[in-house]
């Protein structure tokens, strides 16, 4: 019996299916999912433990460490209100407030500096990287779908995973941190979303261009991004990193809530609008460049 297709096959239907197919394929990367979830659970546990055991308010510790009470004792009781209202002590109190401490350590340092790029790297490099490593890319490259379409479909397939993991993971970590976490979630989720889009685009392109995308991605995330954005380096060179613009959005949100951030002399932020434009622009431009390069690159089935 010969079956004749009732509806003519179309490349658009094939492309839509490729998104679904690739999304499911990513779910099958069990090792990757387990590592990501494991890391999330560990972070949530540590955060919850710190919240319950120590809390996030460090005012007393810092005042004790900087001997403010001793100065007040020596100067006498009359001088205490003056010392307390001095700009240095006021700044110290602001910097030691729960939201400021939580933002500095959990959001800027651990989440933005480590978890977000790592989770993005894990999934975004796997969309094409796993097909390349398993040599199964041949099955996609011999289908009647434009090469740029394959790249774009893979990007759309991996994006929900990255958003789910980054935004969902961020929400979960914040919810494990009580009231201060909920405040941080409200302030920073848009920046997490914007950074996720840009990082996903970059790591996806790395997977299309390099045969060992995870290694190149790690080098990019923890050398290029870290050196440019994490270290207190003055100047405009840090503007080449995605982390910088995500940080600008976060610092702006923090500033609106009167949360002190990095010294303005070291970190010269751009406006919210510019940061958004750059992050969305990077996502679009890098994805377009990836589509172009992928459509011109030869992928041999024995490579």
């Amino acid at each position, binding site marked *: 019996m010969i079956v004749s297709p009732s509806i003519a096959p179309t490349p658009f239907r094939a492309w839509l299916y490729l998104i679904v197919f690739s999304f499911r394929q990513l779910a099958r990367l069990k090792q990757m999912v387990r590592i990501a979830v494991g890391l999330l659970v560990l972070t949530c546990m540590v955060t919850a433990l710190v919240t319950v055991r120590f809390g996030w308010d460090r005012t007393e510790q810092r005042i004790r460490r900087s001997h403010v009470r001793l100065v007040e004792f020596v100067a006498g009781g009359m001088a205490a209100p003056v010392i307390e209202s001095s700009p240095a002590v006021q700044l110290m109190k602001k910097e030691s407030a729960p939201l400021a401490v939580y933002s500095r350590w959990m959001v800027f340092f651990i989440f933005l500096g480590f978890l977000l790029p790592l989770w993005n790297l894990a999934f975004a490099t796997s969309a094409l990287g796993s097909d390349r490593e398993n040599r199964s890319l041949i099955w996609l490259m011999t289908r009647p779908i434009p090469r740029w379409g394959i790249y774009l479909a893979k990007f759309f397939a991996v994006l929900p995973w990255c958003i789910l993991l980054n935004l969902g993971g961020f929400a979960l970590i914040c919810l494990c941190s009580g009231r201060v976490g909920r405040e941080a979630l409200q302030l920073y989720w848009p920046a997490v979303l914007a950074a996720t889009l840009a990082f996903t685009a970059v790591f996806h392109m790395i997977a299309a261009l390099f045969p060992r995308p995870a290694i190149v991605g790690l080098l990019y995330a923890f050398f290029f991004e870290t050196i440019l954005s994490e270290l207190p380096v003055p100047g405009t060179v840090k503007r080449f990193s995605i982390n910088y613009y995500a940080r600008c959005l976060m610092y702006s949100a923090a500033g609106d809530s009167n949360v002190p951030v990095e010294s303005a002399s070291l970190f010269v932020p751009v406006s919210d609008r510019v940061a958004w434009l750059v992050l969305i622009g990077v996502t679009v431009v890098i994805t377009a460049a990836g589509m172009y390069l992928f459509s011109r690159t030869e992928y041999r*089935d024995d490579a």
Partner: protein
Amino acid sequence: MQNADSINKELSSIPNSEIRIPNSAMPVLMFDQVTKWYGPVIGVNHVSLELRPGITGLVGANGAGKSTLLRLATGQLKPNIGSVAVQGVDAWNWQAKRHVGYCPDIDAFYEDMSGRQFVRSMARLCGFSKADAHALTDQMLTRVGMADRADRRLRGYSKGMRQRIKLAQALLHEPILLILDEPLSGIDPIGRQEMLDLFRELAAQGKCLLISSHELEELEKLTDQVTIMARGRIAAVGTLTQIRDLLDDQPLTIRIDTDEPRSLAALLVRSPDVVGVELEPRVLYREGNLQSLIVRAKNPKRFFREVTRMVVDENLNVSHLEALDDSAHAILGYLLGGSGKT
């Protein structure tokens, strides 16, 4: 290698029109002066080839350029010079892939899937609707003899079963051009016969099959139309007989069984085309006085005419006449200057 060199030179000087596969239809696959290199290594060199409906075997030693040729045809590689077209569409273009079914040699699958899921996914990736993909999958799995075993995970499949699944996915969209890289590898003898029958059936439907195989005996059973590659070049294209005829420098070896071997040998050595005659030692189990002459002759066509005339004129009894080295193995051996092993 002197033979191979001179033969290559001679064959490459033959105009394309003389080695084209005779068929009036537009070429399904056309290589036009194609050169492809990987850094300093040349994969294929100045290849021109036209394939039309039917089965063509692709043979050549390892590193001869077969895989590069197949990858160019399937649009995985882009030629550095020249062009490759499938049904007139550039093979690199995604639209050409509508016409191509590819059964690769590599054994990479989505191992977590069952055979049925894999073929169905490939059908969906060809753009078929869900219902059509289901129906086509069932049809193709039946066609390759995997319908009853398709629900097992791919990672548990034997090599032969994987080959059949690869073939099923290649047939899904009814392509006019089927490129099969070692399709019989790992398939048992009964399965091989089924596959050969399927290939013949597909060819009879007007499809163009390009089959790369090291299994020359199987290939010979399937088609006598071969493309022989050597050192990145097309060394010869055509039927085995046509190619053998072109090998004038390489005398054909013929066995002639006769009851008057000495008389016939005396006649044969006078022929200008005969290079040598050997009397094969008598074999006891042969009936009567028959004995074999092993003759090496140039210009086979003229030689066979001459032998026929001698036999008739001298009224000799010839019970058997067989060319010993016009098999694909032997021809390949001559062209490649070796044993013909690929």
